[in-house]
């Protein structure tokens, strides 16, 4: 259940940014999560809802999660390939010497805030 501490970290980071922008409300938190991480969608949503209850800044906030497919590059033959969690070897030459290009992300992509000015900046 490390999603609870991840979500706490997300709220801490976003709250700092929201304060810098004099946000009245945070209406959206959008995350990029790689499919090679151990993050479970349902647990993340649950942690979001539990913590949200005590945070007035987030009372109308929505959580959006983009899952990023796994992509690696072979060091031997330079082939780039998408793969699942289990098969990391290069499909072209069979080498195990590969480097992960995408799929390990745990990022806050963007947020949307209401700053009280009433204007739409997007």
């Amino acid at each position, binding site marked *: 259940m490390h999603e609870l501490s991840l979500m706490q970290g997300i709220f801490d980071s976003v709250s700092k940014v929201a304060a810098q922008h004099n946000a009245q409300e945070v209406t959206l938190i959008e995350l990029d999560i790689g499919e090679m991480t151990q993050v479970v969608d349902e647990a993340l949503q649950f942690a979001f809802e539990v913590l949200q209850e005590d945070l007035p800044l987030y009372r109308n906030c929505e959580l959006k999660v983009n899952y990023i497919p796994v992509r690696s590059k072979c060091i031997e033959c330079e082939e780039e390939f998408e793969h699942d969690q289990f098969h990391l*070897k290069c499909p072209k030459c069979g080498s*195990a010497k590969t480097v992960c290009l995408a799929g390990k992300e745990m*990022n806050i992509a*963007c947020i949307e*805030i209401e700053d009280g000015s009433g204007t739409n900046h997007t």
Partner: protein
Amino acid sequence: MTKIDLETKIIDKNDRIAAQNRELLKQNNVCMINLLASPGSGKTSTIIATINALKDACKIAVIEGDIAGDVDSVTIKALGVDAVQINTRGSCHLEADMIAQALDVLDLDKLDLIIVENVGNLVCTTDFDLGEDAKVVILSVPEGDDKPIKYPGIFRESQAIIVNKIDTLSMFDFDYDKFASVVDDLNAQAPIFKIAATKGDGIENWIDWLKNKLKKQ
């Protein structure tokens, strides 16, 4: 409404502290191993066997991570080795700031090796960098050969894999070749060490691997 692009890492704070830990350990020529496994797989027994094999060759300390209690650190201290107990109070994994506090307590300039016994968990511990030189996962035979299929992350991210309680292989339905084949697809570069920690069987290859790690410091 204003959209703000961030692209910041969620565990940015943890990664920053982990990098500080790594730098501090490097300055003091200390190698740190992050030992991961499920509860009851024999982490403490493996640490004891490792201490017994290495204590004349190098100075070792242990950082024990448990949700509660100090059973493990008491056991380690009885061997004459420094041990720091961290109680995570419910958290299922260690984080870099907990290790930073433990490193503060230890006399780093007198140490060569720190073994971190993480909280017994095959999932959450994988995502948190502590500043270690290597993650090592232990799987014990009674847990079953299907663990790399169910928990691929931990086997993928570890630099070495220990199969403990190998002396019980004939008593369980554990297909070693099947296990090794899945691990080969996941992480062909990680060596697999077959040991029986409480008897000391097979410990030599694991110790040689650790000694190589220590040499590279």
